């Protein structure tokens, strides 16, 4: 036992008055606050009395007694999950109370080997556990965190949905840059009744990309240095033309193909719902931190499966089929299109998508 007491810092977040959460961490200086704390857009000053989720980062003593043991490593009891795990350059230990019901507390202790431990030490637990749990909590309140970009104009929102690599971010930013749209999110937005609520993640990085358009993210070394310098200056969130909420007007699915054509087709709503639900599920499969963990190494779906193995009648086990059904109730009478786009993002691609969107208006 060390004699010095570590000062804890409590960060409070409020997502559109629907879900509130706290991050409790050892007080430390942030090198890249916008990247390390990607939910900063939702941060509030006022201490939240009864958070839906609490994420404690740091050493903890697990209460994994009396548990079912699955695959030698997952400790499971009702509403509780614990395991030690590793992947790529990351290694962690996590305990989740309220895994399926009630207020949720996540205890996380882990580290990443390499630079990321210095620059973004707390990103991993937020992407691995906070993100899926925020989606889960939202769904309990009939709101759905869908994996999609969204832009808005005159109070009308357009979803640019699609899987990773389908140029959602590039398209959304081009709409903001060139056509005067407002930004709602580039990786996720919340569908709540017939509204789309903003869900901007790492808004500073988004505003950097808006200012310095780069193809396909931050690939070059100098891009990264420039981005770090930009983010280090401090980000003024108000400078982003962003909207809080807008009415859902249309959904466009972007699918990348290795054909050289751009092609638009109408999609029926049932298929769209299935795709949106599957994309939410697939978010728990893909890497939560591509710089640290390899492709396809997401864990949350596996953890949910392990829990469902022990409790096949639990809410967790029924979550995905329920989600699709409930999403179907919310999405009615919305036009949906699928746009096939080629592998290279060019101005021609943007113009085509813009034309499709104009036709839909």
């Amino acid at each position, binding site marked *: 036992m060390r004699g010095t007491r570590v000062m804890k810092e409590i960060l409070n977040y409020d997502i559109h008055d629907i879900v509130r959460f706290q991050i409790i961490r050892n007080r430390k200086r942030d090198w890249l606050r916008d990247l390390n704390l990607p939910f900063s857009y939702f941060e509030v000053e006022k201490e939240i009395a009864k958070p839906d989720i609490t994420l404690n980062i740091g050493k903890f003593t697990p209460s994994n007694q009396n548990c079912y043991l699955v*695959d030698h490593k997952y400790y499971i009891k009702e509403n509780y999950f614990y395991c030690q795990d590793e992947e790529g350059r990351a290694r962690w230990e996590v305990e989740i109370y309220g895994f399926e019901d009630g207020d949720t507390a996540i205890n996380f202790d882990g580290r990443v080997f390499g630079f990321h431990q210095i620059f973004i030490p707390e990103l991993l637990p937020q992407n691995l556990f906070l993100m899926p749990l925020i989606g889960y909590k939202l769904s309990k309140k009939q709101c759905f965190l869908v994996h999609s970009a969204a832009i808005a104009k005159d109070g009308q929102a357009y979803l640019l949905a699609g899987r990773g690599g389908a140029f959602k971010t590039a398209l959304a930013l081009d709409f903001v840059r060139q056509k005067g749209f407002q930004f709602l999110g580039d990786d996720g937005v919340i569908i709540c009744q017939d509204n789309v609520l903003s869900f901007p993640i790492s808004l500073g990085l988004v505003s950097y990309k808006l200012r310095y358009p780069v193809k396909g993210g931050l690939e070059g070394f100098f891009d990264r240095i420039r981005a770090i310098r930009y983010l280090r200056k401090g980000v003024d969130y108000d400078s982003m033309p962003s909207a809080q909420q807008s009415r859902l007007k249309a959904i466009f699915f972007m699918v990348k193909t*290795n054909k050289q054509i751009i092609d638009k087709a109408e999609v029926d709503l049932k298929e769209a719902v299935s795709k949106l639900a599957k994309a939410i599920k697939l978010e728990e499969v893909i890497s939560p931190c591509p710089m640290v963990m390899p*492709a396809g190494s997401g864990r949350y779906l596996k953890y949910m499966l392990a829990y469902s193995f022990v409790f096949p009648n639990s809410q967790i086990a029924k979550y995905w089929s329920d989600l699709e059904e409930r999403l179907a109730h919310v999405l009615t009478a919305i036009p949906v299109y699928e746009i096939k786009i080629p592998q290279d993002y060019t101005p021609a691609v943007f113009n085509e998508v813009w034309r499709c969107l104009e036709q839909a208006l």
Partner: protein
Amino acid sequence: MNRAKASENYYNIHDIVTFGIVDKSNFLNGVFYDFDRRYENFKFPPLNKTDFTVYLGDFIPSNQDCYILEDNYYIKEDYFYCAGDSYKWGRWKFELLGLDKGDCTIHISNNPPAAMVISGILIDFLIHYVLSEKGYPLIHASCLSLDNRAYVFASRGGGGKTVIALELVEKGFTFLGDNFTIVHNGQALSFLSPLNIFTYNLAPVVKRNLAGKDKLLLSLKQLVYSVTLGYVKIFTQVNIKQVLPQRLGDRSKVDSVFLLIPKEKFSVEKIDKEELLDHLVINQKLDFYPFTKYILEYSYMFPESNLGAHWDKHKENLRKNLSGDISYYRVETPQSYTKQVFDEILSVIKK
């Protein structure tokens, strides 16, 4: 010149599923591939037509005109190409053609560490898939029989499938499988995979019949395990026919299915069939986890395809084939088995 002469092997499982493995890979991979031992008991003379063929070695994917997801998965109708996946130090890519329509081919290219896991990750799933499509669903379970009545023990890793199987063999039961069991029309069919043994699950019945070479390998692997602090855990595979000659069965009518979950104390309760089916399907999804995720990717584009709808169909197949008068139990066990646990299980069987 990167290739030696290709080796071709053919396998036949109960005349239900046949497959070939053509190894055009390099020497080092050849040392680590485990399909020789893994499917030894299904070995068959060369066949002209098989349900699927596995090609190991570098390949050029025919991924033209595909949808591209996550910049990693190339998908078109009845075609799936994964440009890269990994498990610990292992890396592989693969291309799967014709699974939906039958006449299936899979090309796999991997690095040597992945050679040890590739059969479990990719080939086992294909066996499971084709068996299920033909109405012979596979479950992740061990199976023993006595007086032509089969007792099936399903569990996740660490649940005690193998321990129970070997203990019951000592008690005079016949062995049908310790990792997978095929069910069809109320019967359990054997699936003789090698025993995966490590120093901690070395049952006396196995130890007696172990060759000197295997004993040496076992100690070596224990050493590697200790040196890497548990990161590298290589099981020794021994052929069940060598260890348990004359104690092997082919098929029996299913009497009971037990679902084993380790907790603290022994307890047993009867459950209904639907609940057991849920457990079994999730067990299978976890067991084939990388493939569970490939299916999800494919079904994002083709939800109505056979592959896209696989888990629902598998459940339906299980429902249909676990037919007749079968008892279903959910058994909680202590985390390490004691004599008392075996006695309790035996007393349920004797009822």
